[in-house]
């Protein structure tokens, strides 16, 4: 099974680097055939290009929810995704729309997508460091993803 773990974000905007940092953490202790670890700043259609051809994709990204607790990690699945797609459909092409587009066009898409999202604080200050609560969440997210991958 071809698996992709994709860290999304921006390495120079503080907490937005969390996806990259988790991939780094995984890379330090995790390697197996058929597993690709990748960082990317892509969104929308760019994501479609990246996930094409994999059987399974795990995405790690930053998230900012109203009143959310910094460093909290959410595990979301395709069901959450379609629900949110319903909510956010009027707007920019999101992963769900990209996914639907891919399906319509007959592109080979993964059977399974899981999303880990870390609640962040600051994504507008130029820095390669995360804020303290988010920094603490990084090893935890690494462990969670390692466990997620464990059952392969």
């Amino acid at each position, binding site marked *: 099974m071809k698996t992709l773990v994709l860290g999304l974000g921006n390495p120079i905007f503080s907490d937005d680097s969390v996806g990259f940092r988790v991939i780094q953490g995984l890379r330090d202790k995790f390697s197996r055939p058929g597993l690709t670890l990748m960082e990317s700043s892509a*969104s929308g259609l760019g994501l479609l290009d990246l996930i094409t051809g994999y059987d399974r994709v795990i995405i790690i990204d930053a998230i900012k929810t109203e009143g959310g607790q910094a460093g909290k990690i959410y595990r979301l699945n395709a069901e959450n995704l379609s629900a949110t797609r319903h909510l956010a459909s009027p707007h920019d092409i999101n992963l769900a729309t990209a996914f639907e587009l891919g399906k319509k066009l007959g592109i080979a898409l993964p059977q399974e997508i899981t999303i880990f999202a870390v609640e962040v604080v600051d994504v507008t200050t*130029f820095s390669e460091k995360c804020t303290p609560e988010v920094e603490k969440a990084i090893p935890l997210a690494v462990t969670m993803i390692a466990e997620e991958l464990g059952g392969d």
Partner: protein
Amino acid sequence: MRKITIDPITRLEGHGKIEIFLNDAGEVENSYFQVPELRGFEKFSEGRPAEDMPQITQRICGVCPEAHHMASTKALDDLFHVDPPSPAKKLRQLLYSAFMVADHTTHFYILAGPDFIMGPEAPVAERNILGVIAKVGLELGGAVIKTRMQNHHIIHMVGGRAIHPVFGLPGGVSKALNEEERKEIEQIAKDSVEFGKLSLKVFDDIVLKNKEYVDMIVSDAYTHYTYYMGLVDENNKVNFYDGKVRVVDPEGREFAKYAPREYLEHVAEHVEPWSYIKFPYLKNVGWKGFVDGKDSGVFRVAPLARLNAADGMTTPLAQEAYEKMYSTLGGKPVHHTLAMHWARLIELLYAAERLVELSQDPEITSPDIRTIPTAVPDEGVGIVEAPRGTLIHHYVTDERGVIKKANLIVATVNNAAAVNMSIKKAAMALIKPGKEITEGLLNRIEMAWRPYDLCLACASHNLPGYSPLPIAVYDSKGKLIKRFPEN
């Protein structure tokens, strides 16, 4: 006072906010386009080797990293006083042309297209790329995806990495092209020309043959008489990569033409208390407020501005399309903001044609790709045309090439004053006392800024599609009377 908030701006990378204030009579009094403040770039850059800047600055933006990479690389040429060999310059342009094809494709079909192909007031659930392919056909959808993927493949081949290239060095590039790669690029380039032609035909069929759309394009609500700015070559033709910056006045006459190093003699920045963005304006005209006309220093950048600021295109099919646009819209310059979509497609075709030319250039596979810098670095300015307009990188270093000062003026900032004006004008024309403020009406206001292809450089990748994107409307007491989406 009633307050309308469109927050965050929909279908836009990063996050922004538009606030519209109504007076007691229910007419638009003012509007503000605001973006989040990005803090600490100067401090972040200080003390880093200048050679790192093409890698760092391209991270600022999730939308046009290639443009930052290129402006930064050119600033390094200037900083280290080195002139790259001709094949290196051509390789840079090859990558840049592929980037322009991909980026313009994305903007037209994903962001702009739905308004026209589905209609400005079409149900929101249909006004997106899925609606577009349902209407125009899967085949076109497939061509959009293929064109993007193939051109990203060129960027990967030439630039060493997809999306974020690593090939720009002071004095040249890090990697030459082999014959096999060249052949592959030539084929993609030819396909891209066909796609560019097809896109203009789609625009012709769907937009230009629809009188309602043409009337909307030329309507006063979407028109501003401003100066225009863009890079031109030695014959005053559009160039994305190099040349001088040319400015034409609202009547289309050349107002200024300057080399990158001279930009501070021509562009100054106006500060407003309500905005983190500083508003660039033409220094030699002066800041007169957010107003149109020859006496106002407000200028515009981006595709239509580039076409207005130049005398034409260097490639045959794009030149033909250029002439058609101006003859259809009543000559140069064209002041209609919505015509920017047309100009973007003309540029898409131009970029594809350039790609063919460059892929067939005998020098393109030359191994002579680097001039090693030997001079002491001090100060450098690099200017390119990003898809969204003129992009300026300016660095000052010590004698070791360590950054002391860094200044960037990005395309969206160059357009900031005009964007504010465009939103206000459309809002004033569309929001009337007693008229219900519908989602369709708000979208028509959004259509006033969408052509600028704003890039707020925020690049904060909050999980796509997770949070709902609310548009809230408040009455004069500040009470919420309408919210979109509803839950």
